[in-house]
């Protein structure tokens, strides 16, 4: 993943189709996600947002019964070529889940988990790990609150902190892309605003793709927005345009709350 992406897009899909068994969850999805921006993915539940997101780091394949057809390019490289290393792909494409899922180990170990598993035993210096923890936690503005209890269990944190920790956990691996699947749906309003602020502060350094069912959130954080319905991308435009002057009647129906 070291070659420079020739295009302005971090993620490009072409005619992507996906089946769970015989059920088609994605239909001819062709969508390009701009580099270094926050893009949002909206749509009623069950329309395939999570499925699409999980294609981008090929985590869908952990189910044995998934078939994928079409092309996905991440940073200009086709990720379905046989020489694609899932390990390298997932280092570059991090993911944050709907329910915060910190590992049941300490805060410190959660942050360095990625570093530890990607380096051979005994080659990591403690000072390097300490630096990585401080840097990552500062980036998600958890450092000041947590620096004195780095060795308590991550699962004892409040949900907002847990979700921020899950983001921090990706950072030491220097990902290019961060995928977030309804990262605020388990949080209250205030915590949601906290996470949104964090997203905005990370924008520019990472390409972010946020799935949300909260249209106000999409408007607040994203520059581009794609609307999905029944496995298809119906419309993809600048967020302002999509919400103010949708081209498709189905998009208009959705954002005016007529279904979903």
């Amino acid at each position, binding site marked *: 993943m070291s070659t420079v992406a020739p295009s302005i897009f971090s993620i490009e899909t072409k005619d992507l189709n996906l089946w769970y068994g015989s059920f088609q969850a994605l239909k001819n999805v062709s969508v390009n996600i701009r580099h270094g921006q926050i893009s949002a993915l909206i749509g009623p539940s069950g329309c395939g947002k999570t499925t699409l997101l999980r294609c981008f*780091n090929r*985590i869908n394949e*952990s189910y*044995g*019964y998934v078939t994928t057809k079409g092309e996905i390019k991440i940073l200009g490289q086709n990720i379905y070529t046989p020489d694609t290393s*899932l*390990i*390298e*792909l*997932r*280092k570059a494409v*991090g*993911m944050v*889940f709907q*329910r915060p*899922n*910190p*590992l*049941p*180990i300490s805060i410190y170990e959660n942050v360095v*988990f*990625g570093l530890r*598993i*990607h380096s051979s035993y005994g080659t990591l210096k403690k000072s390097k790990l300490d630096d990585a923890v401080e840097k990552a936690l500062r980036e998600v503005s958890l450092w000041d609150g947590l620096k004195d209890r780095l060795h308590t*269990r991550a*699962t*004892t944190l409040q949900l907002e902190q847990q979700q921020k920790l*899950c983001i921090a*956990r*990706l950072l030491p*691996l220097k990902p290019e892309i961060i995928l977030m699947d309804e990262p605020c749906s388990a949080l209250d309003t205030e915590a949601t605003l906290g996470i949104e602020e964090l997203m905005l502060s990370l924008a520019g350094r990472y390409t972010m793709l946020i799935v949300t069912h909260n249209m106000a959130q999409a408007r607040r954080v994203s520059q581009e927005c794609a609307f999905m319905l029944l496995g298809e991308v119906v419309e993809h435009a600048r967020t302002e345009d999509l919400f103010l002057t949708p081209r498709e009647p189905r998009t208009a129906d959705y954002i005016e709350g007529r279904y979903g």
Partner: protein
Amino acid sequence: MNDHHAVFQATPLTRRKQCSEVIAMVVFLLMTSLIVLPLLLIVGYLVYQAWPILSLDFLLTSPKHGMRAGGIWSPLLGTVYLVVLSLVIATPIGVLAAVFLNEYARDNWFTRIVNLAVINLAGVPSIVHALFGLGAFVLFAGLGKSILAASLTLAIMTLPVIIASTNEALAAVPMAFREACWNVGATRWQTIRHIVLPNSMSGILTGVILQVSRAAGETAPIMFTGAVFFKAIREGHLFAYGLFDQCMALSMHLFTISTQVPDVPKALPYGIAVVLLSTVLAVNALAIIVRVYLRSRKKW
């Protein structure tokens, strides 16, 4: 005012409901106590009958005078050998097989056959295991009647249960933890080693420990494969049996002196029963302690 009062007066119907509520609770309580009662009665009766003979000497001396006197050292040591060896064989195989089935295998015809085999193997009567052990280990593999052959037979018997309990313990680890690991590029093995196994250890250990009492209690599987009625060994010596020796065992010894030997003092078989039972209870208690201890350390 009066009107308000009357609203909360129990009508005859509600009074009848309250009455049946009390009756129901008493019946349930009685039934629940009935579960505990037999255990208390059995333990009480055994200890009462065995009381005259129970002492440390009873554990540490071998049977004497045609097994009519002395203690139970040689069968006790034999049982320890059989249990430890069988679990040393069965645990790694069972745990690794369960890890494969749960963490690596896709849902296909092969895993379905294996799971079916595990379930059916768990239901095979122990006497059938005994015959299999006799054929496979004693005769075919040429191990003869020996501690090794008997332990292998016990291992086959405990294996499916260890696989099943390990499976359950692994399945209890939330999928979200695995996905969190895969998403930072961890391999399956790294995920298993760092997250899945540490968090399912209490369940796995409990399953294994509970098999101790099962292996210690069974008579049939060892009768044809390695256990003998009587064998003289050096007292007070922990390595008195060799791997290819035959040995005595508590369950078998109890059977022998209760049915095959005349004029055995009455307290003797009860003494053996008490030792067997307390082993089982102690092991179960240990399983509970391990479980509680490891549970208290993990929270999610």
